[in-house]
């Protein structure tokens, strides 16, 4: 049983979600999965009971939470402005807007 491979598998699943999902909330969930995979490495690579790995984990959590708050704020603003959280849809609306301005 190897925790590094477990971490790699979770990282791959997270990256797959980040690349293929078009919903902003799902993108955020993928980022959370990637962060979990990284923190799992911190704890398990320095042998689980070790203080240094856990200290790194606490620092990683702080960054992760800040990133989460930022992404959620952006998500809410995008939803309010465009009425959808789908990235493709948002891009299409913006493109239509630009084309409309060009025609005028």
């Amino acid at each position, binding site marked *: 049983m190897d925790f590094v491979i477990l971490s790699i598998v979770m990282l791959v699943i997270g990256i797959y979600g980040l690349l293929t999902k078009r919903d902003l909330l799902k993108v955020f969930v993928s980022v959370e*999965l990637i962060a979990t995979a990284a923190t799992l490495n911190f704890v398990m690579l320095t042998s689980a009971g070790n203080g240094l790995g856990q200290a790194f984990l606490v620092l990683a959590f702080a960054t992760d*939470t800040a990133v*989460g708050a930022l992404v*959620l704020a952006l998500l809410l*603003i995008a939803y309010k402005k465009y009425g959808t959280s789908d990235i493709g849809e948002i891009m299409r609306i913006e493109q239509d807007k630009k084309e409309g301005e060009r025609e005028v």
Partner: protein
Amino acid sequence: MILELISIGLVISACLTIFLDEAVYSVLALTGTFLLTALLYALSGALFAAIFQFAMGVGTLAILFLSGEMLSKKPPKIPKERLLSLVAVGALLSLPMLFLSVSSPMNVFSDVQFEEALWRLRAGDVLLQGLVVLTVSVGIAIFLHEKKKGEE
């Protein structure tokens, strides 16, 4: 044996998190991922890590669940076949970790205590990170305030 079972559950719930289409179900599966990770830490002897994982997971999931409820329509029922196939994919993906090995445990800092590591070895990091988090939160507050002002 129990660690292996938890790890397989972790991969399966990660698969469900990504491949389930509705945001609410996805967040529910992410709950499983966070809880199993906390359990894995606790059983491996990293108690502080388990507590932090649990506390942070609960906070993140509460917000995510509310956002998911708010932003998506009522989720339809998941077909049983799809759920079973996703569990099978998760179990299949967890096979390499059970049978392959790429590392040996490195006990470089084996006698470092958590308090010593956090407040002596990485004290600068802790302070800087506090500053970063504070800046980000103030930035978000100003951003949202300006946005609200612009709408009025």
